C-alpha cells in the first residue's frame, strides 16, 4: 500500500505540483491522468525520489520513503521511464540490472533464475541474448517491465508505458502489468493518456490538473464533466456490454 500526502514540487519559483495526496492499496492499478504539462511524470518521479519533493510524505506499507536508503528504496519502488535509452546490452543483461539493489559482490544463481523466469513470463525467452537496439518498441517495453519486476517491488511506477506502442502491444502490455500486479500484490501507478485503456486496465483513477489533484476514485470518477474540466474538451461517456467507454468530441 502506498500513501501519498501533500506532495509539492517546483522548479525554482515555478510550482509544478502542489498538495497531491491519495492512497492506493496493494494489487491496485491506479491510472494517473491529465493533460500534457499537468505534472504527471514529475509526480511519479517524486515518489521514488528521482526528483526530491519540496514538501510532503510518502509511505509504503507504513514506512516513510524519506527514511529509506537508496538500496532499500530501489527494493521497494520500481520505475519504468517514458523514454528508454538504447544500449548494446542484451535483454538478459538489462533485466539483470533490476537485481542491482540486491547485489553485493557478484550475481547469484538465484538472481539469474529470477531474471530468466521473468523473461519467460513476458514472453521474450527467444530474444534473451538479443541486443536492446534490435528490439521493437513493444518488446523493449516488456524488457523494461521485466527489469522493474525483478526488483521485487511493492510499488511499480510506469510513465506512459504504451506511448510508442501499437494498439495490440498497448493491450498486451497493460494486461500483463495488471495480471502481475494482481498475482504479486504490487501497487501500480501508471501515467496514461488513453482514457479507454485506463478504464479497461486500471482500478482507480487520479486526475491531475495544473499540478494538483482534481479527482480520485473508481470508475465513477471518469465522467464527462471531469474529462471536460481536466482536458478542456467535450466528451461522452457511454456503457457498452457493461464496460465504460469515452468518446472525445
Amino acid at each position: 500500500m502506498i500513501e501519498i500526502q501533500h506532495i509539492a514540487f517546483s522548479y525554482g519559483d515555478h510550482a509544478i505540483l502542489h498538495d497531491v495526496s491519495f492512497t492506493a492499496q496493494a494489487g491496485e492499478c491506479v491510472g494517473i491522468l491529465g493533460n500534457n504539462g499537468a505534472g504527471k511524470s514529475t509526480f511519479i518521479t517524486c515518489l521514488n525520489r528521482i526528483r526530491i519533493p519540496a514538501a510532503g510524505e510518502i509511505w509504503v506499507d507504513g514506512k516513510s520513503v524519506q527514511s529509506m536508503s537508496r538500496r532499500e528504496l530501489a527494493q521497494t519502488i520500481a520505475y519504468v521511464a517514458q523514454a528508454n535509452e538504447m544500449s548494446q546490452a542484451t535483454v538478459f543483461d538489462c533485466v539483470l540490472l533490476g537485481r542491482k539493489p540486491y547485489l553485493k559482490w557478484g550475481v547469484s544463481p538465484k538472481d539469474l533464475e529470477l531474471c530468466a523466469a521473468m523473461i519467460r513470463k513476458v514472453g521474450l525467452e527467444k530474444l534473451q541474448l538479443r541486443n536492446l537496439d534490435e528490439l521493437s518498441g513493444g518488446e523493449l517495453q516488456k524488457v523494461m517491465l521485466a527489469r522493474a519486476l525483478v526488483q521485487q517491488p511493492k510499488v511499480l511506477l510506469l510513465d506512459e508505458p504504451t506511448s510508442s506502442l501499437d494498439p495490440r502491444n498497448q493491450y498486451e502490455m497493460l494486461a500483463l502489468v495488471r495480471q502481475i500486479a494482481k498475482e504479486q500484490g504490487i501497487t501500480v501507478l501508471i501515467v496514461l493518456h488513453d482514457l479507454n485503456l485506463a478504464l479497461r486496465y486500471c482500478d482507480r483513477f487520479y486526475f491531475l490538473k495544473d499540478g494538483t489533484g482534481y479527482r480520485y476514485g473508481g470508475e465513477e470518477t471518469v465522467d464527462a464533466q471531469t474529462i471536460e474540466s481536466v482536458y478542456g474538451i467535450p466528451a461522452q461517456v457511454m456503457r457498452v456490454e457493461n464496460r465504460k467507454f469515452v468518446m472525445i468530441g
Partner: protein
Amino acid sequence: MEHLSSPPTSQAYRHYIAGKWYVLLAMLLVTLAAALASLMAGSSGLPLTQVIGALLGLGDPQSLTIVWNVRMPRVATAIVVGIALSMCGCIMQNVLRNPLASASTLGVSQGASFGAAVSIICLGAGSQINSGSGSAAALTITQPYLVTLCAFLGGMITTVVILALSRLRGMTPSTMVLAGVAISAAFSGGTTLVQYFADDVMVATVVYWTFGSLGRAGWSEIALIGLLCLLAFLFFFFHRWNYNALESGIHTAKSLGVPVEVLVPSSLVVCALISSVSVAFVGCINFIGLIACHMMRRLVGNDVRFLLPCTALCGAALLLVSDIICRTLVPPTVLPIGALTSFLGAPLFLYLIIRGGRTA
C-alpha cells in the same frame, strides 16, 4: 515470486558470459605477447629466448641491461599509461553518455599538458639534459609530484567545465567535443604564452615533451602511475553495476539506487587524476582511450564488468604495439608516439562523428 521455477534460460546466459571471459583472457594473452614483442624489438634486436632468459635473470650482462634497464621501463610505462588512458575513455563515455568522450577529445589531456608545462617552465619542476643523439635536448622531471599536481589541476579545470556543460540542456555528444576543442584551444594558447616567456632550450624541450614519449618515465614515475591506476580500477570496478545502470539513462539509474549526483563527478575526478598523471610523465598521447573502448565494445558490449578490464588491456596492448612501430619504422630514430596514435585514432574519430550514433 516463489511460483517462478528455475528455467533453462539462465544456462544460455551463463554460456554467453563465458564468451566474455574468453575475450578477457584473450586480451590478457595479447597484451603479454605485445609486451614480449616490445622487449624483443629495437635497434639491437634480441631473440625471444634471450628475452625470456633475461627476464629470468639469466643470460649475458648486455642482454640483461637492455631488457631490464632500457626496454622494461618503456614496456611498463606503455602498459600503465595505456591502462590509465583507456580506462578514462571507458568511464568518461559511460558517465557523460557520450561515445566521443576521452581525455584527449574533451581537452583533459591538454589541460593537464598546460599544467605540466607551467610547472616545468615557471616552477622549475623539470630540467633539460642531452638526449644522447646530439641534436635534441630531452627533458627530465626533477619534481614529479609538483608536475603531477599541476597537471592534475589543469585536467581538473577542464573536468569542471565539461561537467558544467554536460548539465546544460541540448548538449549533444558532438557539441561536447566541440566544447572540448574550444577548451583545448584555450589551453594550447596558454601553453604558447608560457613558452613565449621561456628561453629557447626550455621551449624546445617542452615542445619535444608534448610529442609524447614512453622513454622518459623512470621506475618511480611508473610506480606512481601504476598505483593510481590500480586504485582507479578498484574504484571503477566497485561501481561497475552503477555504470551499467547509467547506460539505461539517469532516471532509470536513480530508480535502481545509483547515487548519480556523487558518482558522475567523482568518476570524472578520478579520470582527470590518472590521465593527468600520465600526461605529466609521458606527454600527450591522443585517442588511445577512444580507440580501445570502441574496439572492446564490439566484442563484449557495454557491460562494464567486462568492458573495463578488456578496455584497460586493449589500451595497454595498443600502446605497446604503437611503441614497437615507433621504434622500428625508421631505425634508429624513435618516432613520437603521440603522432602515431593520432594517425590511428583520427580516422575512427571521424567515423564516429559522421555516424553520429550513441555507440560504435
